[in-house]
C-alpha cells in the first residue's frame, strides 16, 4: 500500500513481527476488507460478482502454485491435476457419505496434498525442465486414472454432481451468496500464505530456491522441505478444486486439463514469482483481462465492423491483445505485476522529493 514508514517506532518483538507493522497499512488492509465484504456485494450486479468469484477461486490456486514455484523454486505443470484430485475427493465424500463442505473441503485438500507429496518425489533428484516433464507426466497419469476408474469418476461421464454448500441451514446458490463463501476461503488462503512464507518453513523454501546445496549445508532437510512444499502447494490446489466443484455444482476432470495448469503458471509469472500480492494480481489479470478486452472490443468495435463480423473479430482480438499485453507487461517489468506495483509505491514513498 501507499504509505511512509517515518515516525513509526517498534518497541517490542511482537510489533516487529506483525504482518502489517505500520498503522496506516493495517488501516488500508481493513478498508480493503470492508470494501470486499460490504461495499462490493451490495453495490455490484450479480454478473460482476460472478467474475470476482472466479478470481477468488483462482487466487487460492495461484497462491498454492506460487508457494511451490515462486518460493521453493520447484516447477510444476501438474497443478490442475491436483485440483481434480481435490474435486473428486470432495464430490465422492459429499455424494456417498453426505458430508458437509467443511469436512469435504479439507479432505479434498489433504488428499491432494498426499498425492502431491508423492508426485514431488522426483524433485529430490531432478530440477528445472526435467522436473517439469515429471510433473507433466503426473498430470496425464492422474487424468487417465480418473477417466478409467469408475469408483472415482462415478461412471462413463466422469462427472459427479454435488449439492450446493449449506451454512447454518442456508443453501448457497446465487452468485452473491457464493461470493461470501469463496471470499472467506480466499482471505484464509492469503493470510495462511503470508504466515507460511515468513515462518521457518517459508524461509527454508526460499533457501532451497536460492541455492539448495547451501541450504542443505546450513542444516535444512531438503527431502522434508521439498516434499512439504509439494504437499502445501497441492493442498491449496485441492482446495481450489473443491471450490470449483461447489461453485459449479459438479466435479468434472475435463475442467482441470493441462491448459488450466498452464493458465495458473501464467498467473504467477505475470503476477510475480515469490510474492503473495503477485499471485493475487496474476489471478485478477488472467481472469479479468480477457473479459475486459472483449467488452472493449464489443463497445468500440461497432464503429469498424458490422455485428456478425464483430463476434469473430472479438474472439481473435481478445487473444491477440491478451498475448500482446502479457509481453508488454513482462518487457516493462520482468519480475511481474507485483514488482511494477512496488516500483510505483517506492516512487510515491519519497514523492515529491526523489532523493
Amino acid at each position: 500500500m501507499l504509505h511512509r514508514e517515518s515516525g513509526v517506532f517498534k518497541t517490542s518483538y511482537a510489533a516487529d513481527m506483525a504482518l502489517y507493522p505500520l498503522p496506516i497499512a493495517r488501516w488500508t488492509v481493513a478498508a480493503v476488507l470492508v470494501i470486499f465484504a460490504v461495499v462490493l456485494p451490495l453495490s455490484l450486479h450479480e454478473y460482476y460478482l460472478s467474475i470476482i468469484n472466479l478470481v477468488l477461486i483462482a487466487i487460492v490456486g495461484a497462491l498454492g502454485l506460487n508457494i511451490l514455484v515462486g518460493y521453493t523454486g520447484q516447477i510444476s505443470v501438474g497443478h490442475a491435476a491436483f485440483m481434480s484430485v481435490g474435486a473428486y475427493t470432495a464430490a465422492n465424500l459429499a455424494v456417498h457419505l453426505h458430508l458437509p463442505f467443511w469436512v469435504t473441503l479439507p479432505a479434498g485438500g489433504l488428499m491432494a496434498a498426499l498425492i502431491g507429496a508423492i508426485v514431488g518425489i522426483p524433485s529430490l533428484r531432478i530440477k528445472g525442465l526435467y522436473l517439469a516433464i515429471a510433473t507433466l507426466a503426473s498430470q496425464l497419469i492422474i487424468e487417465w486414472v480418473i477417466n478409467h476408474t469408475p469408483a472415482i469418476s462415478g461412471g462413463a461421464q466422469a462427472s459427479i454432481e454435488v449439492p450446493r454448500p449449506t451454512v447454518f441451514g442456508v443453501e448457497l446458490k446465487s452468485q452473491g451468496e457464493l461470493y461470501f463463501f469463496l471470499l472467506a476461503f480466499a482471505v484464509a488462503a492469503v493470510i495462511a500464505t503470508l504466515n507460511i512464507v515468513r515462518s521457518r518453513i517459508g524461509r527454508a523454501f526460499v533457501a532451497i530456491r536460492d541455492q539448495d546445496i547451501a541450504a542443505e549445508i546450513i542444516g535444512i532437510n531438503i527431502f522434508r522441505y521439498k516434499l512439504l512444499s509439494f504437499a502445501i502447494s497441492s493442498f491449496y490446489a485441492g482446495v481450489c478444486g473443491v471450490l470449483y466443484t461447489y461453485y459449479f455444482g459438479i466435479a468434472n476432470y475435463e475442467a482441470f486439463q493441462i491448459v488450466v495448469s498452464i493458465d495458473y503458471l501464467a498467473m504467477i509469472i505475470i503476477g510475480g514469482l515469490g510474492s503473495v500480492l503477485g499471485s493475487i494480481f496474476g489471478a485478477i489479470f488472467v481472469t479479468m483481462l480477457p473479459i475486459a478486452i472483449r467488452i472493449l472490443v464489443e463497445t468500440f468495435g461497432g464503429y469498424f465492423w458490422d455485428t456478425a463480423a464483430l463476434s469473430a473479430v472479438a474472439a481473435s482480438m481478445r487473444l491477440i491483445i491478451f498475448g500482446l499485453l502479457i509481453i508488454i507487461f513482462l518487457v516493462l517489468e520482468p519480475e511481474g505485476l507485483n514488482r511494477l506495483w512496488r516500483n510505483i509505491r517506492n516512487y510515491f514513498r519519497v514523492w515529491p522529493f526523489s532523493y
Partner: protein
Amino acid sequence: MSQRVRLGISLSLGLMGLLLGPAFAQDKELVIGMQCDRTGATQIVGTTLCPAYHDYVALVNSKGGVEGYKIKVIEIDNEYKVPPAMEAHERFKMEGAVIDSVYGTPQIAALNKKLEEDKILGTSPGFGTAAAADGKKYPYTFPIAASYWSQGAAAVKFAKDKLGGSLKGKKIAYLYYDNPAGKEPIAVLEDLAASEGFELRTFAVPAPGVEMAAQALDITGRFKPDFVITHLFGRSPSVSIKELKGKGFPLSKVVALVWGSAEADINAAGGFGTAEGYSCMQFAGVGHEYPVITQINAMYKAQGKEPPKEQANSVIYNRGVFQAAIHLEAIRNAIKAKGGGKPTGEEVKSGMEQIKDFTLDGLVPPLNITPEDHEGGGWVQIWTVKGGKFEKATEWFQAYRDVVKKHITATN
C-alpha cells in the same frame, strides 16, 4: 504514463458502456446468449457453427423477426474452458437472455444446475451427457439432437441393415476417443451386443487422437470385424479414415458418429476420392439443397455479398442453422402461447417442449420435444461419401429407443 492513462480511460468507458447497455434493450426485442468456441480446442467446429447461427438469425430478423420480435444474439467465446462459460451465462442473464446456447460438454455439465436455478434453458446439441434427455431430472437442459446413446444405437441399426438384417455371430469394432464422451455409448453398445448376438470389441484412442496405427492394425489384422463404428473428435476422424484405408479395411463398412462427419474431416483425410464409401451420422441435413440455405444466400446477395464461405463445410454450417432454428421456434411457440406477449425464460422453456413437426424442409429432423423427452426422439440420418460428395444413405430414423430409454431411466 499517458499510455496507462489512456488505457485506463478506455477500459472505464468500456465498462460504462456495458453498464448502460441493458438500459437500451427494446420492448420488441428478445435476447439469446450464444456461447461459442472460436479460439479453443474445438475451434474447427465453432468457426463455422457460430457464423451459421448468426446468418439464420439475421435471415429471420430481415423478414421481421419472430412474431414481430427482433432477436438479438450476444456471442461469447468460451474457449472451451469452464470458468468463461459461467461468466458468459451470468452475462446473458444480466442482459435478460431467454436462451443460453451452451457450447461444450464440460461447460453444459457445469451449467446444468445454474440453468435450472435461473430458469433459462440451455441447449447442448451433439454433446453433453446422454442422460440429460430426461426432462424431469434436468428441466432446463435440452440436448435437442441425438445423444451419444441414441447415436450408438443408430450405428448398430445401420450396421445391421448393411449386413443383411442380422447381427448374429457378427463382429463389430468400436473405435473411440478415450474421454468421457467417447466412452459414453459403450454401455448401449454392450447391451445391444447381448441382445443382437454380435461380438463387440472396443479400441480406445488416447488424446490427442492423431496416433492410432496400433488400434487400426489390431482391428484389421487381429479382430477382423464385419463393421467398424468410430466415435472420434477433432483431427482424429481424418486419421482414422487414413489408417483404416491404409490397412486395407473397406470404408464401406465404417460408420462414424456425428463429430467425425464433416467435409473438413473428409478433406483432411485426403479428400472425397480417398474416403469413398465412408458413412457418417448427422443430426442436421447436409449440403446446400435446402430452401433455408437458398434464402440465406439470397439475403447475402441482396446486400451485394457472396454467400458465406463457411458454407463450404455444410455439415457444421447446417448444424448452426439447425440450432438457431430450434431456438427461434421455441421462442415462437412461447410468444404464440402468450398471445404476442414478451415471453420469459420459463415460457420459452415450455415453448421448447412443444416443438413438433418442425423440419425446415428436411434440414431439421422430425423432433418431438416433450417435457419428458428433451432429446426429441434421437433422430439421425446417415450420409455416405459417394462420387466426390455426401449422398444420403438413409432418411431420418431412430433406433432401439427402448434400450436408450432404459439407460436414461437407470442413470437418473
